[in-house]
């Protein structure tokens, strides 16, 4: 991999800067492994199948600044879910002054990762870096190499948390083109129940954020996870999320992606015990030259598991989107029930979608369906609305919002759902206005 040394050079100063930051040994080890792996892997190129449609030109030549501990310049109140336990991070570094964790039930840990690692938590030692594909994925490697801090959530067995936990990551602090590596570790022990909101927002710069989230779900535990990517429109967001489910557990996620010049999430789910169930839904909006990609692999490693994905996209302008969905059913994963669907709404002639759902089935008694659609709004529906008096633009807006609404209505945190409905409506209005001015 001789190319690696050439195309990762731009990151070396940031990597050096982070390497010299004090950190618990666990994190230092991870940094070293990450750095080594990143040096080997290098930035991906379009010659690699997994990156064929994701151009990284915009970040290749860029020299990003390394993060430093600063107070957030933006007030997170508008994003705040009022009853949530709040942790705020600026360029991946914990900002305790604006976080509000509150009193926690016995045994529950909601903290920054450094604290989790220094307090000798076995969960951190056991699971941090255990799921993220450090050796294969360049951005999982880069994140690990740059790890400064992160969020750590540990819900002990049988504990049901009513209040959601909200993690807000601000990238590009003070308008600087920072390189940040938010890290999240969630360990939900057997029979526990929790809701986590992961929010990525930007502070006005063409920063690069490469978050890694690792989620370990124990027997019969239930985890709801809402991921909102509202980075600034010139930012780059390359995320990796890895989830492992034990028997009878349930993971339900809604990923809403509206920001970023380039926003890509690579998700890996392993159903690792019988009767586990994973539902992953997503909504992405793109306009201008935005690109929003989802690469999703769900592996059924045990019998009798269920997995469902519905990803919907609304693309206008010259926006691009890639959906690569893979369902792998292992040989002994009999009675698998898997369904994957990707539906795209194109609001312009120049928007491009690459949708590629795949099934790899090695068991013989399974029910697997997948499909994708790319289309425009139904003319007949538009006419129906207009014939009742609703204006053309408003009709399009209403139908587009309804298309997106199917995902938004699955967000289990009411306050967040209502805010997201407004955010999406505002974005769609902006898209409609820019179409009107063409």
């Amino acid at each position: 991999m001789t190319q690696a040394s050439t195309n990762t050079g731009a990151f070396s100063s940031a990597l050096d800067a982070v390497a010299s930051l004090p950190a618990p040994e666990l994190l230092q080890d991870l940094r070293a492994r990450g750095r080594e792996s990143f040096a080997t892997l290098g930035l991906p190129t379009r010659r690699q199948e997994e990156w064929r449609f994701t151009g990284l030109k915009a970040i290749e030549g860029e020299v990003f600044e390394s993060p430093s501990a600063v107070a957030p310049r933006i007030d997170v109140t508008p994003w705040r879910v009022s009853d949530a336990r709040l942790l705020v991070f600026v360029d991946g570094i914990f900002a305790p002054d604006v976080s509000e964790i509150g009193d926690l039930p016995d045994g529950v840990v909601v903290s920054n990762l450094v604290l989790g690692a220094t307090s000798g938590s076995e969960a951190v030692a056991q699971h941090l870096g255990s799921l993220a594909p450090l050796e294969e994925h360049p951005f999982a490697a880069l994140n690990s190499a740059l790890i400064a801090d992160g969020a750590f959530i540990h819900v002990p067995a049988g504990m049901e948390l009513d209040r959601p936990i909200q993690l807000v990551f601000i990238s590009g602090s003070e308008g600087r083109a920072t390189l940040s590596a938010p890290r999240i570790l969630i360990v939900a022990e057997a029979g526990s129940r929790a809701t986590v909101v992961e929010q990525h927002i930007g502070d006005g710069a063409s920063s690069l954020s490469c978050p890694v989230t690792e989620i370990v779900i124990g027997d019969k535990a239930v985890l709801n996870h809402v991921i909102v990517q509202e980075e600034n429109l010139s930012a780059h967001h390359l995320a990796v999320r890895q989830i492992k489910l034990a028997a009878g557990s349930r993971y339900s996620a809604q990923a809403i992606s509206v920001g970023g010049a380039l926003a890509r999430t690579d998700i890996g789910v392993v159903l690792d015990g019988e009767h586990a169930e994973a539902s992953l839904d997503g909504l992405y909006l793109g306009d201008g030259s935005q690109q929003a990609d989802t690469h999703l692999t769900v592996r059924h490693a045990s019998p009798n598991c269920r997995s469902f994905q519905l990803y919907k996209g609304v693309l206008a302008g010259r926006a691009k989107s890639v959906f690569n969905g893979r369902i792998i059913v292992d040989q002994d994963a009999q009675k698998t029930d898997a369904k994957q669907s990707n539906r795209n709404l194109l609001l312009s002639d120049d928007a491009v979608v690459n949708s590629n759902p795949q099934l790899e089935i090695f068991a013989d008694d399974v029910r697997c369906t997948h499909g994708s659609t790319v289309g425009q709004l139904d003319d007949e529906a538009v006419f129906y609305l207009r014939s009742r008096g609703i204006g053309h633009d408003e009709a399009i807006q209403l139908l587009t919002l309804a298309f997106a609404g199917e995902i938004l209505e699955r967000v289990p945190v009411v306050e967040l759902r209502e805010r997201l409905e407004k955010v999406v409506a505002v974005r769609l209005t902006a898209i409609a206005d820019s179409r009107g001015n063409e």
Partner: protein
Amino acid sequence: MSLLELKNLHVSVDGNEILKGIDLTVNPGEVHAIMGPNGSGKSTLASVLAGREEYEVTAGEIHYADQDLLELDAETRAREGLFLAFQYPVEIPGVSNTYFLRAALNAIRTHRGEEEIDAIDFLALVREKVKVVKLDESLLKRPVNEGFSGGEKKRNEIFHLAVLEPKLAILDETDSGLDIDALKIVADGVNSLRGPDRSFVLITHYQRLLNYIVPDFVHVLIDGRIVRSGDRELALQLEDQGYEWLEVEPAQAAGA
């Protein structure tokens, strides 16, 4: 003063002439039935009046409430009090029936310079109007027409009509696919909405509907022309004799 006047209307779709010179005058409060065999151009007439853009008017004029109707886009026609009950009402997933109807009503009210209706008054209005067609209130919260039965979709159209209170309602084969009980409910609904300020154009293949909604005038449309006009007796005659006797001598019939 007529509400709607068609003069020598010629309409083509994809270069094929469907309507070949229609003359029709509808005065306020009148109920006109337009009958004809399949393919005679009945639904084309409804579509042109409602403002469907794929239809090309190649000759003739349409005047509606002192305006050139062909100058108005579909939504403006609706706001000016023209209503089309669809032959095939469209399912709109994700948009609730009441939300849709309130948006429509407010678009109409804003156009008239009136204030938008608030949620509480709207709910009261909807509760009252839903009785007109005995529509189950649970269908109000559901997405527009999604999962509705054929009869429920048609009743929902008349419910929309009742809420939006148009000056001219065009019912495009609203009777098709309805069993006799549903047909009576729809007809009763329409009859309760008749009044001096509201005209109806009923487009139908069968005279059955006209047993329940008695029209003031009946027009027979064959091959893009109105070949005969009369009162409800003409509809009864069509039921007895079919359309063939009019098809053989269209030239004479047109002059009758």
